[in-house]
């Protein structure tokens, strides 16, 4: 990547009067293959490369980008950003500033064994064939089977006017599947899920997709054949499986901890937060609730060692033993809160500005085995996986509808129950947790935020957790 061009952009912005400038060249290259019911239906190749430039001038922030890396075009883009910032600065009563951070000069890369873009095409296609072969006995019950496999490599060079220079490389591998099971007279069950990693092709091999999907198919068939109504209209205890816990902490702890939401910066799009700036130190849940976000987990989808503002990444403890402990910051919000950035700035591509994002958010494990979690439950439901979910724009009112879910009676797991809906407030949920499993598992997703939309790879996870005295409702 051309450090000269990036430095040129920064220097030119400073020459034109910027107080701060930052330029990021980013290249994303990859493929995506769509496979449907035995056929590789379409193959997409993608290359995106360009430069994004951010300038701060008298408190006014402007961002501009171009896919054309010629000097004359970069001059135009810088001048445009400067013009906009300059015009805006005249109207601002109170401007933006950035928290001071050390100058960083670093190169980092996500370690991988097998470059996913150098894997022979035949082997890429074998992933699908292996799944279909293994699902052969179930295909007649699975009328709709859609899989997507994609892999990409991202390289970035970030230079800012304070002297930071960060270069990084990381791969991203991703697989999603949609399975629809149907049997006459019993309706259908739909499962959609995804896997991801910043490792190379070895991650795809490690997923053992044929076995994973055949297990999914078996469970879906059992749901159709056996699942009964969940207990409704009474308080029961609920064990949330790792997959549900992962999504729950992402949605109702990670997102509301984003300081830009807390300040109202996403109000008209992804929404705000139930948290207010002065809520750090306030209790939000029981002592069992500790939730962290850590970008430095090797192999994770949210992996990075320096963020897109050049700040060194570290683990963030968002809720600590039930108390709000730390918000997610970039340099802009850190300045408002008079703290240091904790390196949460990420941009999904060259033409997007860095904004506050999660990386890998998870519920810290406790010390219960699964058997210990359920042993004193008189009546309850274990929600292992989910399909439908949503949450309000303050991240207070959430819903998860179970897919694979079991009745618990007198400390024992019983038969499957169909579509139990957990609809609960964030406070109601976290204050009702009184037991946490010891086995931490992660799941992958693409988190959407920003305007224009920025999808970034993340992990989320946790162990199984026990939630007491919950009234479940039925899905439609």
């Amino acid at each position, binding site marked *: 990547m051309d450090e000269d061009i990036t430095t040129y952009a920064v220097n030119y912005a400073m020459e034109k009067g910027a107080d701060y400038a930052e330029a990021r060249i980013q290249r994303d290259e990859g493929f995506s293959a769509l496979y449907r019911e035995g056929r590789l239906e379409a193959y997409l190749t993608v290359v995106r490369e360009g430069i994004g430039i951010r300038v701060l001038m008298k408190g006014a922030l*402007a961002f501009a980008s171009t896919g054309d890396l010629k000097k004359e075009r970069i001059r135009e883009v810088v001048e445009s950003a400067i013009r906009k910032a300059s015009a805006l600065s005249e109207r601002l009563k109170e401007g933006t500033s950035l928290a001071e951070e050390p100058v960083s000069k670093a190169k980092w890369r996500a370690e991988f064994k097998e470059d996913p873009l150098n894997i022979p095409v035949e082997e890429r296609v074998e992933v699908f064939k292996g799944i279909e072969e293994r699902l052969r006995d179930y295909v007649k019950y699975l009328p709709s089977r859609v899989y997507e496999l994609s892999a990409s490599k991202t390289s970035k060079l970030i230079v800012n006017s304070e002297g930071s220079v960060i270069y990084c490389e990381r791969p991203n591998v991703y697989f999603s599947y949609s399975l629809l099971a149907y049997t006459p007279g019993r309706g259908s069950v739909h499962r959609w899920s995804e896997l991801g990693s910043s490792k190379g092709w070895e991650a795809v091999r490690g997923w053992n997709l044929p076995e994973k999907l055949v297990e999914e198919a078996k469970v879906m068939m059992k749901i159709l054949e056996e699942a009964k109504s969940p207990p409704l209209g009474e308080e029961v205890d609920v064990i949330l499986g790792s997959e549900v816990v992962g999504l729950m902490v992402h949605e109702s702890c990670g997102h509301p901890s984003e300081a830009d939401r807390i300040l109202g910066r996403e*109000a008209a799009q992804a929404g705000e937060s139930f948290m207010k700036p002065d809520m750090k130190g306030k209790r939000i849940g029981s002592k069992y609730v500790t939730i962290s976000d850590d970008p430095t987990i090797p192999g994770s989808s949210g992996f990075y060692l320096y963020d897109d503002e050049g700040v060194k990444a570290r683990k963030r403890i968002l809720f600590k033993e039930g108390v709000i402990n730390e918000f997610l910051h970039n340099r802009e919000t850190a300045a408002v809160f008079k703290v240091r950035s904790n390196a949460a700035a990420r941009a999904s591509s*060259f033409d997007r500005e860095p904004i506050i994002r999660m990386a890998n958010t998870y519920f810290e494990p406790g010390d219960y085995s699964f058997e210990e979690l359920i042993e004193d439950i008189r009546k309850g439901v274990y929600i292992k996986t989910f399909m439908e979910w949503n949450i309000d724009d303050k991240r207070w009112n959430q819903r998860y509808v179970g897919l694979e879910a079991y009745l618990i009676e007198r400390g024992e797991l019983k038969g499957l129950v169909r579509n139990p809906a957990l609809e609960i407030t964030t406070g109601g949920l976290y204050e009702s947790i009184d037991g946490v499993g010891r086995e931490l598992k992660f799941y992958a997703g693409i988190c959407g935020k920003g*305007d224009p939309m920025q999808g970034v790879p993340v992990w989320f996870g946790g162990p199984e957790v026990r939630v007491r005295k919950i009234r479940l409702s039925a899905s439609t």
Partner: protein
Amino acid sequence: MMIKDVAKAIVSEGLKLGAEDVAGIIRRSIKKMVRFTNNKVTVIKEWREVRADFYLGYKRRVLTGSLSKVDLDTIRKAFSDLSKVAKYVTPLDEYVSLPRGPFEYGKIGEAFDDRVAKLEGLTDYVEEAINSALEEGARRVAGVLNVSVDEKFLATSSGIEAEDKATNISITVRAFLDKERSGQGVSCSRTLDKFDPSYAGRRAGEVASMCKKEVSADPGKYTVILDPLVVANLMGEIAYYGLSAYFVDAKLSFFTGLMGKKIAWEGVTLADDGRLRNGPASTLFDDEGIPTRRTVLIENGVLKSFLHNSRTASKFGVKTTGNAGWLIPRPWNIVLEPGDYKREELIGEVRKGIYITNNWYTRFQNLREGIFSSITRDGTFLIEGGEVKGMVRGFRISDRLPNLLLNVRGISKERELVEWWETIAPVLAPTLLVEGLNLTKATK
């Protein structure tokens, strides 16, 4: 290279590779955005982008690509990579050649406005919207203003060379009394004359101000009034996941097997219109070069058509509707035909019900059966005896989309053009009265 030359180069390079069908679309755009929060602008952004998308039909196989660098070397490298992939892609039984042109494309009214293309002083429009919301009683206002100028050029190996250009300007305004009480308004247009930031601000402020009094209501089945913002979100889901032939073919659509059947109340007529005057997504041609058109999808409650490209049309034994997407047909502008009522009259019809002005986060438990939920956002109100009684909190629509369509009982005559962060496609949306919609709330 000019964008025309790049598109033509894609076709000639693709043919050299041995592809029998080649299409290249080059899109060049300048987009500007002003975001504002707490009554002030927080960031201004500008993008200049050239993107090349291409389609190769290679021995009945489908290969596609997307490049942000559009020089000949990058194109050749991408094609060379794809040539190695081709033999592993499955030849499709339903494969059809790209449609043979040329076609006459005519014109679309109010598609390009030079004043929008040259617009400066975007923050003036933002201030106009903020002030309108504040005048209605809002205390803080947030939102986004978008302006774009887009050109595209399509060349295909089947004799099509076509170009189109567009301007768009839109604003989303969210007004707050406090954290819990808010309203939203939008305005979107292809031309400056029909762009109304004051309206967006006023509507956002008005809904927020309606939240002053709070009342309580239990979850359950209700007659609901759905404002155009809600209708736009849900009709987008219906048009894409329900009516795109791709999802029907994948047996994931909740309308699979229902062609010609009654799927909605008889007052419901839903169309896709690629040539809607002033429609944000209006365009002269689809990705295959087929002239766009108006397609009635649901007529008086009966399912009449899905959205097609040439390949899905061939598989379904019908003609393309001009909605390509090389892989997935998609809607342009969704149009729900108006009814006879004013919004106030619809509200006046409701003995006890809930009035929902906005929603987001529509997610499916089972796409095939259309089982979904979507959470209310901004002002949601209890109606009793035909009057709005006060704001209610925490409601979620938890039902089946097919039920919703069948249970419509009233449609307003006024419609709004809606496109914002939470819509799949722009929708010309009226207000709806729907009976017996299931609404749920948190239990703890």
